[in-house]
């Protein structure tokens, strides 16, 4: 059985989108209610940097995948007949 890997990418992008929305809500609270100090700014910048690293690393690791080509679902613990 084969499946286009684009489906997983779409699901991934949707979940990352939810992640961004929740992140923006946290930024809103810090900006509106927080006493903006160097510590809070630095921590927020570190958060943004780590977020970017994770996402960029993910796409770099998956660079070899041909998203339009279906891939075979081979699970090692399920032997094919």
């Amino acid at each position: 059985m084969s499946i286009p890997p684009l489906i997983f990418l779409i699901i991934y992008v949707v979940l990352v989108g939810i992640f961004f929305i929740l992140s923006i809500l946290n930024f809103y609270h810090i900006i509106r209610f927080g006493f903006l100090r160097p510590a809070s700014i630095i921590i927020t910048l570190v958060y943004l940097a780590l977020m970017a690293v994770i996402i960029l690393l993910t796409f770099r690791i998956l660079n070899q995948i041909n998203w339009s080509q279906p891939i075979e679902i081979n699970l090692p613990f399920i032997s094919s007949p």
Partner: protein
Amino acid sequence: MRDPSKIHFPGQGADETVLMAIGRHPMALVKKVFVFFVGAVVPVAIFFVAEKYTTWLDDKTGFLYLVVVLLASLFYLYILLFIYHVWVDYYLDIWLVTNERVISIEQKGLFHREVSELRLDKIQDVSSEVKGFLPTIFKYGSLQVQTASEADKFYYTEVPNPEILTRQILELHEQYLMKHPGVASVPAEQKPAGEQEKKDETKTI
């Protein structure tokens, strides 16, 4: 304690000065994020075991490799989000002590913020408690401020050096009474550490 001179809040009076800005002790944050950091190690360990002892991840364009990488990416993104959210929640909890009142601001989740205030002349009792191994080592505990009304108590947990803060709040209370001699109030008393009243109607922060 944060620098009070840099803090201005909505509703601050013209002659009102922020004297103390008390945030929670950093251990309150450490205790909550520690579990996330431990959890973050798990996928790495699983990956190394699978990479070294199995052939599951040998095909870098295969289905299993794709799913594992996407799942790991989402896992780390959401752990990062939870840690940041815990920090935001910790950062936004603060007690402000001015020359007129005590204001407690607590962020309870993303869409719930509770602000309470207590005038210095209304303070009746102030007590502190340090209980447990970590609080004793790192010098943090709880602080309770009570008014004449049985229903009004401020209870602030995981506060650094609560005994010192107790004395400072009492001093401010007495200074306030001296500056406003017309205010009818019985001077507050400091309760010995460890003696606390029931917390049935307490606003726990």
